[in-house]
């Protein structure tokens, strides 16, 4: 394939990765920003989202689009409720002590993974996309008559992948509006700034925490529902999103939402594009080292403000 179309393909694929990553990571960033809690089980909430999406859509065999719409509405709520329950029963009792919550969420990770294995089983299962048309894409080239369009071999995307990018953008905008414009967002930001002060002003901090933890998990689940028609639901699928979300949240400046989205774009796109130039595994090694070095030499993240 020529270089131009290749780069365009890698960029489009990177954009899909970035969209899903931005949703997942903003859930993690929200939890970390407001609660100062590192949720190691975040990837498992992502996995639960995908598995539940398979389960819900399997009720609607023959009506894939309807089943999928139903899944996208219900699954994040179920996962969010489950996470809120975990917050109230476990994390709250640990007084959100950073190290203890890490261990507790590792425990939750094992529990969710094993319960899924015991009920859903070890297979990877696909979900039918509500729509999926292959769209061949044109590219320009110079001919004697000037610029002209042609259809390079292999340069294409599917309508569903485009829809994922659009949906993620809309959801992130909605989240941004909720955080900046609504009373709920105000309460979250107040809790984030100063927990004691928020309590003094009568903000139900405990309920805000449960809500934020649920919302964070719900976002991961939502991302998973969006991606599961492209990938498949599998009980071990939570590991990679967790690792990538960590990277994104750190580079994005620990809990800042716009920073997280920017970082997701950077990571998602570079993952697609770096693999154009290097052997894929080498690309992964370089990317991983790069993230580590960014952190070392710019600990506040690439987009982070100077927060204490």
């Amino acid at each position, binding site marked *: *394939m020529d270089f131009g*179309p*290749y780069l365009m*393909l*890698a960029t489009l*694929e*990177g954009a*899909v*990765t970035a969209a899903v990553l931005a949703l997942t990571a903003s859930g993690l960033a929200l939890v970390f920003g407001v609660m100062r809690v590192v949720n190691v089980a975040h990837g498992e909430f992502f996995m639960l989202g995908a598995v539940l999406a398979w389960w819900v859509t399997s009720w609607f065999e023959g009506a894939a689009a309807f089943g999928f719409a139903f899944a996208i509405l219900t699954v994040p709520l179920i996962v969010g409720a489950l996470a809120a329950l975990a917050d109230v029963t476990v994390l709250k009792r640990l007084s959100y002590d950073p190290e203890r919550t890490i261990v507790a969420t590792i425990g939750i990770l094992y529990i969710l993974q*094993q319960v899924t*294995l015991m009920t859903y*089983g*070890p*297979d*990877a299962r*696909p979900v*039918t*996309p509500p729509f999926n048309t*292959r769209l*061949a894409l044109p590219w320009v080239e110079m001919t004697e008559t000037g610029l002209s369009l042609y259809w390079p*071999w*292999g340069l*294409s995307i*599917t309508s569903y992948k485009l829809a994922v990018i659009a949906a993620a953008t809309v959801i992130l905008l909605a989240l941004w509006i909720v955080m900046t414009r609504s009373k709920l967002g105000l309460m979250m930001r107040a809790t984030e700034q100063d927990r004691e002060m928020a309590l003094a002003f009568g903000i139900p901090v405990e309920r805000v925490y449960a809500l934020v933890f649920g919302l964070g998990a719900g976002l991961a689940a939502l991302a998973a529902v969006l991606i599961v028609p*492209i*990938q*498949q639901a*599998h*009980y*071990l*699928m939570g*590991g*990679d999103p967790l690792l990538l979300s960590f990277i994104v949240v750190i580079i994005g400046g620990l809990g800042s939402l716009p920073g997280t989205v920017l970082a997701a774009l950077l990571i998602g796109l570079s993952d*697609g594009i770096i*693999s*154009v130039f290097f*052997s*894929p*595994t080498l*690309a*992964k090694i370089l990317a991983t080292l790069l993230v580590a070095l960014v952190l070392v030499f710019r600990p506040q993240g690439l987009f982070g403000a100077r927060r204490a």
Partner: protein
Amino acid sequence: MTKSKTIKPVSTQTTRRGALKTLALGGTAAATLPLWARYAGAQTAAPIKVGFQVHRTGIGAAYGRWYDRTTQAAAALINDQGGINGRPVEIVAEDDGTDPKRGAEVIEKFATQHNCDIGFGTLFSHVVIGSAPRAGELKLPYFVVSEGHHVASGMLNRYTLQPGITDVKSQVQAMAPFVASNLGKKVTMIFPDFAFGHDHRDFFTAAIEAQGGEVLEQIAIPPTETSFTKYFPKIPRDTEVIYHVMVGPAVLTFVKELGEFFGPQRPEIFGFIDSLEAVDIGSPGLEFLEGTYFWEGNPRYAQADQSPYDAFFREKVGVDSNGASVNDPKDVSTYAHMFGCWETLHIVKAGMEAAGYQTTADRAKLIEAVEAMTDLPHSNAHPQGAKVFNGKTHQVFGHQYISKVTDGKLLLVHTTSIEDTYYPDEVDYTTQPL
């Protein structure tokens, strides 16, 4: 390629006589022992314990479930037929989490805690390689069902054998003549960037060059990758055949995205069914596979000329003619591999009977008896096909199957000869002490 001479049949006569002699010696020795010891040596009703290392959790769990079902079915059959040397077979299953560290611990548990007679049934190569040293030290006969080249490469030890499933080296090289003469000579390979993929890369590249073909490009995909489209532009345009062997849960995505990438015009595609074990060929997104070719260890769909042995095997394990569970047509089996558990357990039975196996003290005799085996005819004990066991390399050789996806089913189009799968011996385990 005249590789047929490379495997010399082990001189069965003498070895068998040797085994008999040892047996007779043992008998005399037993007669001179005190009474209590002789009784302990001749216990008849106690079960023969087969320590079954099963991937119940971890990345191998989808395989583990079917390995378990096949093993239980084989054990039930052997017990119905009167057990081994008049003793029932008991399967002692332990999960290894598909992890080499836990695998080695499980082997220790079999040998020293459960007092198993043998260890058996491991699939994933890294678990085999992590466990085999312990099996060798504990002198626990360790029958693996892994299709890895680790046994025949000489890396392991005299107590580790693979008599029930062929290894990746022989499988891969047997594909080259078919690919070169039917599909094309310019091949692009797509494989996972770890040892299993590297085996395919090295063995197939050599084998296709021997057929006058060439590998244009080798695309190694990092483990844990979940999206693949970005790698496909590396496929050269003049590729005639794509050879793919992806494994793991992301396989469906891989195939789907390959289809979306090529759209209506695609080169010939040849894959290893490892990609789609336990996956329904009719899954959404896999329509693209129509007309492509697969290596199959054992044809998943019952073919028109199905052997009575295959029918028997399916019935006993509970698999329908589409390779799915009879109880749940959506529960697709790992049909291309799981026969290995069945056949291996029958080898163990035959070996124990030839060795007159009585107690764990006879483990060395069991190894010698299995090493003495050569021809394994197509039968209920070997439903996948006839096989030839090489006692020196501890590896079995057999027919390989190539199927074409036709109307959403896998239709057998080619069966390789056993000779196609031979390569020169890389080790002689029989020179190692027992």
